[in-house]
């Protein structure tokens, strides 16, 4: 199979994933009757407002009812409630694929816009700030300790790290977050309970930055504490399995210097799988820390999605699901390309 063809198949699969997830979400929301229920309740709410306004102008109750009925029919058409839910699907999917994300009902940006794209653009940097910096720190820790421990396989340090990573695999990050708040914010009163800035945020840009640092410290520490164990362990395992390969032994037996063996024979081969983890972690982290964001009241994509689901904001749910999947799928594709660059065996 040619390289182009491999990538093309992968790309097509990922596009299928994207559209599949979108269709699946729409189907779920539509088929469960959720969409109809929510739309008609929005419409009735709007209708009630109109009735109140009209009641001051039209005195005759019968005439008022007739006028309202007319408006109701118009609204039903406007909301597409005259057609079954599946008739609304193509339009909805098409709009979202072209990134025309519509507007949210309750959630707003700080400037007051309720356009979904504005809201997402406002939230994404917050999530990236928290999650990506946590990921980078964890990755650095993993990369620093993992290979060193792999070379000391079986020693006490190695076993301690294995235990730490086992604990961190079993430890819910969000619960650790609650403990951290309980200890540092409630007991010691030295760190804020949550949020991203104090209320009101400081005016001075530098103070504002310090305020942000003060707020990001606890969630960041939580994420590093809870997840670095797995990172070290994954890196360790990958490096360990590579360093047990025969070609590494051959290199050593040949008498190559240890540094060279590590650089050329171990790290070079171990890099692609480690990179896979980083990329997937990066992509997953955009949506992945919903719970941590909730615990720390961090105004990111996770809390946004939670709010969207809880208030059944159809367009927001769809848009966010799409964006999450899009980011994930893009990361996967970049990964495939990188793999080809890094691992010559794939090119065969």
């Amino acid at each position, binding site marked *: 199979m040619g390289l182009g063809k491999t990538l093309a198949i992968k790309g097509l*699969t*990922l596009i*299928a*994933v994207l559209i*599949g*997830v979108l269709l*699946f*979400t729409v189907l*779920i*929301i539509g088929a*469960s009757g*959720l969409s109809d229920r929510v739309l008609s309740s929005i419409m009735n709410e709007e209708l009630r407002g109109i009735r109140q306004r009209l009641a001051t102008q039209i005195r005759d109750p019968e005439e008022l009812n007739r006028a309202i009925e007319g408006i109701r029919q118009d609204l039903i058409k406007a909301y597409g409630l005259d057609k079954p839910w599946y008739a609304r699907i193509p339009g909805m999917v098409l709009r979202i694929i072209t990134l025309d994300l519509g507007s949210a009902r309750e959630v707003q940006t700080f400037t007051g816009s309720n356009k979904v794209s504005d809201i997402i653009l406002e939230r994404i940097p917050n999530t990236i700030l928290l999650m990506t910096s946590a990921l980078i720190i964890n990755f650095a820790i993993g990369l620093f300790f993992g290979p060193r421990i792999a070379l000391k*396989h*079986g020693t006490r340090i190695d076993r301690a790290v*294995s*235990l730490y990573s*086992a*604990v961190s*695999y*079993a*430890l*819910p990050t*969000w*619960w*650790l977050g*609650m*403990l951290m*708040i*309980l200890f540092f*914010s*409630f*007991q010691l009163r030295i760190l804020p*309970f949550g949020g991203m800035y104090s209320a009101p945020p400081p005016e001075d840009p530098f103070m504002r930055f310090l305020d942000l640092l003060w707020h990001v410290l606890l969630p960041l520490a939580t994420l590093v504490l809870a997840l670095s164990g797995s990172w070290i362990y994954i890196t360790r395992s990958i490096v360990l*399995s590579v360093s*047990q390969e025969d070609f590494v032994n051959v290199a050593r037996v040949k008498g190559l210097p240890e540094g060279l063996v590590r650089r050329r024979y171990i790290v070079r081969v171990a890099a692609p799988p480690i990179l896979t983890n980083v990329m997937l972690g990066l*992509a*997953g982290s955009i*949506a*992945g820390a*919903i*719970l941590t964001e*909730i*615990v720390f009241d961090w105004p990111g994509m996770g809390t946004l*999605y*939670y709010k969207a*689901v*809880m208030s059944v904001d159809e367009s927001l*749910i769809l848009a*966010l*699901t799409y964006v*999450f*999947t899009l980011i*994930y*799928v893009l990361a*996967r594709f970049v990964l495939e390309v990188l793999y080809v660059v890094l691992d010559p065996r794939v090119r065969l």
Partner: protein
Amino acid sequence: MSSSIRESFSEFWASNISKLGIVFLTVLVVVSIYTVTTLPLDFGVKYWYNPTYWVDYPKAAQPEWVNLFLSEKLMKHVELSTTKATGIKPYDDRFIKYYNVSYNHEYSQFPKFITLKISNLVFYDRNSPPIVRFYVTRPDGRTVELYTLAIETPSDNTTPPFKYFSTEPKRILLSGDMYLARSLVGFLYREFNLSLGTSSVLEVGNERIVFGRISGNNTFTPLTGKYVFSIVLVCRNVNDYVGMIDVVLGGYVYGLMGTDVLGRDLSQGLLFGFPVALIIGVGTSLLTTVIGAGLGIVGGYVGGFVDDVIQRFADIVNNIPLLPLLILLSFIFGGRLWLIILVLVFFNWPSLAIIVRSMVLSAKTSQFIEAAVAIGASRLRIMVKHIFPQVAPFILAQMIFFTPYAILAEAALSFLGLGDVSMPTWGQILEYGFKNGAVFLGYWWWILPPGLFIVYSAITFVFIALGMEPVVNPRLRRWR
């Protein structure tokens, strides 16, 4: 075959971490069995999510054992009950039955509240129902009249014996009770020559006056010593009786695990979390493994179109960001345990199927499979008898390693308020705590244990999986 299993097991048992895992697992299973046999299966609906069941419990009380670390002990929650009359005396044309309970107060706090409960009052004379009077005699010898309960005349269409409060006990909350406040006004004036109005009595708090001595201007400090609560039943018929009388003194510490803001005994909810976590963890991982491994083996061995379909589908599902969809699905279909399990299975079998398939592909080329084909063994026989044993250890390890994932996923969903509302789980207890500000109020006993149990049950399987690593991946053995 059996000797290789024995060998694998001794390999597994050799490491300390697997021993620890097995010990943990045993505890997990034993506690789950204990819970299922002692608590009713509808515990969630009937008790946990039924606030009236918990009204007599202290709200947000710490566990009792905190007293071990405190120099000033916190008052334990007390429920004094009696079923037998301690004495009977004729009085004019009536009888008086005494029910006494005593309590030794030795704390420097007042009770949080005082509640009286009467269950199962039975009497025979339609025209003169009994009267129930409550008194308390304090350590200083003074007696306070707490309450008088007059029983309504029964309706005409009933026949004796008349039974009152048999399904639901009559509950009298004395703190804030007007009758007691008035009685206390008289008590203070008579005994201490202190004039306080009912409103100032209520402001101080009934329970503080009943359990207090005057220590200054309208301030009371707890009076320690023996309190005797006597309940007096004035009745016409000598056979009239009260089934049970309870005096509840609200405390500051309760039980092994404390209570939440509704007064729910956390130890019971936490206990119920054990079997639920076990079912979710084992159920999900079992189903996921059976489906994932089955489809992986079939796809890998049969190949062709079947394989293509399975792999394409697995590829697609495997590329979906899981958590957002999981949240959406649980929100729409409502929290039901089996649904949560099914959703977790649906999203997680593909990764196993992909790996198992690649292992089967390499196993397929080995000579003994060729030999089996040559003899004329059927595909099914080859898959079950020859391919499956090759990948079985790996599958088993994957299954065990997936179990904590399922436990954690359910806890996360529960924490988002999307769990099964018919039974308490650790995630739900945490969710309710977080929503009620347990973290911000410092209710550590509400936050710590559920999370610790989640970690405990998850780490049990992580340990076992770690112990299995050298068995599944023999290359690791020589390093030990």
